[in-house]
């Protein structure tokens, strides 16, 4: 079992065996990168964040008691590094715009997204076009919505774990997830075959041309 194997490698790494830590890096690097990329959006930054997460994990190995799996512990570090990184960038650029308009969040077309995306992601979702659309949509969400979606869907955290990881109440977790999903669905609506979001509202503002 990988978790047991991880703990054994951690013990060796704590004892100073570089090869053991190296194995842990190789084993977890892609998962860490995927989570980091989802949060920070930028590939180069995700690479840097992933590296920093491993360096910090190495520094804090003596503190790892095995209360959670090594993967969970490592991804917790990566999440914090990624969020810090985004917030630093945001402070520098003074923006983290929520690019989803309220008019885009109106209901309708329920189920079409599921039909379009399919239920087997490995069969349907691996198409390049879809990958690009999803990343593009994710990139338009504010950091708090990106982060909670990524932690829920990529890392698979429960409501309780999300509350603990993000330092928010469980009710806030559910509410934030709801809004994050709603925005993603709105952004993907056009790809899923729905009318382009906001087109009607835009037309009305411009004089109501049909």
């Amino acid at each position, binding site marked *: 079992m990988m978790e047991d194997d991880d703990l054994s490698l951690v013990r060796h790494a704590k004892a100073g065996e*570089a090869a053991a830590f190296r194995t842990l890096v*190789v084993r977890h690097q892609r998962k860490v990168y995927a*989570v980091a990329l*989802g949060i920070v959006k930028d*590939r180069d930054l995700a690479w840097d964040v992933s590296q920093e997460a491993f360096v910090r994990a190495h520094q804090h190995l003596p503190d790892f008691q095995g209360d959670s799996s090594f993967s969970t512990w490592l991804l917790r570090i990566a999440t914090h590094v990624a969020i810090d990184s985004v917030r630093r960038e945001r402070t520098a650029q003074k923006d983290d715009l929520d690019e989803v308009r309220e008019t885009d969040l109106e209901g309708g077309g329920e189920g079409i997204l599921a039909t379009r*995306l399919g239920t087997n992601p490995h069969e349907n979702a691996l198409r390049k076009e879809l990958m690009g659309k999803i990343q593009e949509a994710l990139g338009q969400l504010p950091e708090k919505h990106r982060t909670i979606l990524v932690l829920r*869907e*990529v890392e698979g955290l429960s409501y309780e774990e999300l509350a603990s990881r993000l330092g928010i109440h469980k009710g806030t977790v559910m509410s934030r997830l709801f809004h994050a999903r709603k925005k993603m669905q709105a952004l993907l609506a056009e790809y899923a075959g729905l009318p382009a979001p906001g087109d009607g509202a835009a037309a009305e503002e411009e004089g109501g041309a049909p």
Partner: protein
Amino acid sequence: MLGSRPGELPASDQEALHAHLAGCDACQARLADSVALGAALSAALQAEAARVDFAPFVDQVMARVERPAGVRGLLGWLRRHRLVAATSALAPTLAALGLIVYLSRGGSEPAPMAGDVEVTAVGRATVVLSDEEGPVVLIGDPSDSGGS
């Protein structure tokens, strides 16, 4: 509550949700959207990670963790203080300016050259001081001017 996993909701909420879903086609469709979106998002990010060439990754991490703590701390400090790093790129010029100030405020020593020194900056790391006796070339170490 749509999209919750077994055990995440109190039993009473879970039962109420099931009862509602059984009679609400719209919420069933929303749930299907939520599940599809989650699976697609996870697949998209993992597929992106799978496309990345990670060959140099582990060596870069190991190079950082195997550095002596003092060097690691200094590099970390430099990364966090980019202004200092940027300033270090100007070190040769600043040194030349410091020399001019020193020459012009030479105290009790006569400073015959002070008025005749001409400073020419060549690149980031080389400064030429020309006085009446000819040029003096100050060559900085480019590796010191890169910052990080």
